[in-house]
C-alpha cells in the first residue's frame, strides 16, 4: 500500500495515514547535529580556516615584523609574479619532487617490497629479527631519526668514517642523498608491513600451481606475485608520497635546507621565508603551492583506495 492512498471501504477511519514526512526513506535526523558539531567546528575553524587564510595571506604583503606586520594590504599578483620568477622556488620544486619520488616512492617502497619478499622465504629467526628492527626504525619520532642520521653523516660520523675520511662532512657534500636516505630509513618499515600483509593475502593455490608448472622463482615473482601486488604497490606509493611531502623535521634538522639551498624542499623553504626572512606572505604562498600539490596526490590516493574495495 503506497503512502497517501486510502481505500475508504477497506480501512477504518481510525487508520488514516497522517500527512507529513515520508517514513520509507532514510532521512537526516536532527539529533545527529550535536554529535557532528564539535568535530565540524574544530575542523572548520582550525583546519579549513587556516588553509583559506593561507591563500588570502599569500596575496598580501604581510611580514613578520615591520610596518606591514600590522597594516598589510592585498597586493594582488605581486607575490605570485615573484614566485614564478624565483629561481629558488623552481629549485625547491625540483628538489621536492626528487626527494619525494627518489626517497619515498622508489626508496621506501622498493626496500619495503624487497624486505617483504625476502621475508617470505627466509629463516623464522631472521624474519622476526629484521622485521622487528625495520619496524622500530619506522616507529621512531622524526626528530630522533634526524638526530641519528645527522650524527651518522656529519664530520666524524659513522658513515663518514666508513666510506670517507673522518674529517669530511658527508652532510656537506651529499646532502640530498643523506636526507633521502634518512627518509627512506624511516618509512621503509611501513611499506614492508603493507606488502607483508598483501603477500599473505595471495592465495596459496596460485603459487602452488605455478610451482607445479615448474616456474622458476624469478618467473613466479614477475608473472604472478608482482601483478597481484599492483594495487598494494599503488596505494603504498601514494602513501609514501604524502608522508614524504609532509616531511619538515628531518630535512630541517639535518641541513636546514642547506648547504646554501641544496636541500631546500618546499616545506623548509616556506618556513625559511616566513620565519627567518620574515616574509610571512611569501611563505604562505609557497605553502599554497604545497597544498595544491598534496591535494592532487591525496585525490589520487583516495580514488585508488576506493577503487580497490
Amino acid at each position: 500500500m503506497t503512502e497517501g492512498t486510502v481505500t475508504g471501504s477497506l480501512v477504518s477511519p481510525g487508520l488514516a495515514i497522517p500527512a507529513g514526512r515520508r517514513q520509507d526513506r532514510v532521512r537526516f535526523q536532527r539529533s545527529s547535529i550535536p554529535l557532528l558539531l564539535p568535530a565540524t567546528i574544530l575542523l572548520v575553524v582550525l583546519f579549513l580556516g587556516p588553509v583559506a587564510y593561507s591563500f588570502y595571506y599569500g596575496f598580501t604583503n604581510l611580514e613578520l615584523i615591520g610596518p606591514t606586520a600590522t597594516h598589510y594590504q592585498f597586493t594582488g599578483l605581486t607575490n605570485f609574479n615573484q614566485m614564478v620568477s624565483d629561481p629558488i622556488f623552481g629549485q625547491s620544486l625540483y628538489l621536492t619532487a626528487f626527494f619525494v619520488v627518489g626517497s619515498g616512492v622508489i626508496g621506501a617502497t622498493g626496500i619495503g617490497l624487497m624486505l617483504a619478499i625476502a621475508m617470505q622465504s627466509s629463516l623464522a629467526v631472521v624474519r622476526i629479527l629484521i622485521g622487528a628492527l625495520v619496524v622500530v626504525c619506522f616507529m621512531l619520532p622524526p626528530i630522533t631519526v634526524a638526530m641519528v642520521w645527522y650524527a651518522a653523516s656529519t664530520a666524524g660520523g659513522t658513515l663518514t668514517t666508513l666510506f670517507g675520511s673522518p674529517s669530511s662532512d658527508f652532510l656537506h657534500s651529499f646532502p640530498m642523498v643523506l636526507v633521502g636516505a634518512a627518509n627512506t630509513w624511516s618509512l621503509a618499515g611501513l611499506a614492508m608491513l603493507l606488502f607483508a600483509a598483501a603477500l599473505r593475502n595471495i592465495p596459496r593455490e596460485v603459487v602452488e600451481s605455478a610451482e607445479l608448472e615448474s616456474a622458476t622463482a624469478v618467473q613466479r615473482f614477475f608473472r604472478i606475485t608482482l601483478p597481484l601486488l599492483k594495487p598494494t604497490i599503488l596505494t603504498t606509493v601514494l602513501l609514501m608520497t604524502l608522508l614524504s611531502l609532509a616531511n619538515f623535521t628531518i630535512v630541517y634538522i639535518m641541513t636546514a635546507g642547506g648547504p646554501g639551498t641544496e636541500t631546500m624542499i618546499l616545506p623548509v623553504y616556506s618556513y625559511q621565508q616566513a620565519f627567518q626572512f620574515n616574509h610571512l606572505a611569501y611563505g604562505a604562498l609557497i605553502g599554497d603551492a604545497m597544498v595544491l600539490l598534496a591535494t592532487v596526490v591525496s585525490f589520487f590516493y583516495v580514488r585508488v583506495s576506493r577503487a580497490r574495495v
Partner: protein
Amino acid sequence: MATRTVVLPGMTEGKALIPVRPRRVTSTRAISNGVLVVLGVLFITPLLWLIFASIDSNAGPTVRFPNLTFGNFTAAATSVNMQALLNSLYISAIATVVSTVPAALMAYVFSRRHIPWKGPLLLFILMLAGVPVSILVVPLYQVFADHNWLSLLPASIFLGVTSMPFEIWIIKNFIDAVPNDLDEAARLEQATTMQIMMRVVLPLALPGIAAAAIFGFINAWGNFLVPLVLISSSGQQPSPVAIFGFFGGNVIRYGQIAAYSIMYSLPVVILYVGMSRAFRGGFVLGGAVRG
C-alpha cells in the same frame, strides 16, 4: 633418521614418532636470508649508534665500543629537559582528547546515520588527512599572535585537529564492523541514541577508538614544527624543540643527546606495539550476532 615426538590430532593418549625432514637449502632461501641480513645491518647501524652513544661517556658521532656509563642519562635528566618531556606529555594528552572525542562522535554519525552527500564528504575528510601541516602554521601564527594565543594550550588543540581527519576514518571503519542488529536490538529496548552509542556501539568499537587515540598521541608527540612556531615561551616547549636546542651549542654532547632521545622515543615505540595489538584484536565481537 631423526625423529621427534608429537601428539597427532585424534590421539587420546600417548605420543607418536614422526620423522624430521630438514629444510632444503635452496638458492632462493639463501639469497633471501642474505638480502635480509645485509639490509638488517644497514638498518641497525644508526640505531646501534644511538644505543652505544647513550651509554658511552666519551660519545662521538661514530659507532664505537662504549665506555659504559649511565652518566649520560642522569646528566640529560635536568629539570629543563624533564619539563620538556612533561610538556610533550601535556601537549599530546590534550591533542589526543581534542581529536579522538569529536572524531568518535562524528564517526558514529557517519557510520550509522544518513547525511546528505556522505560519500563525497568522507572522501573530502580523507583528503584532509593528506594536507601537510607545515603550511598551516604560517597563517595560524599570524592569527594566534594577534590574539595572544602563542602558548601550549592553543597549539595542543591545533595539533589535535590535524590528526582528526584520519582518526575519523579509522573509527568509522571500526564502527562499521559493529553489526547494525545490535543497534536495532537496543532500540527495541527503547534505548535513546545516547544510550545506544555509549553502551552498545562505542564499547564494541573501543579497540578502534584506542588505535585512533594512540595514532593521535604519537602524531602530537613527534611533532616538531607546530610547537616550534606556535609556542613562544621556551619553558613550554616540548622535547623535540629541546633536542633541537642541544645542537645549537659549541660542544655537541652526543652522549646526552642520545640518552635523552631514547627517553623521548621509548613511549612511542611502546604505544605503537599497543596500537598494533588493538588493531589485531579489533574484529572479534564475541559472537554477539548469530548467523
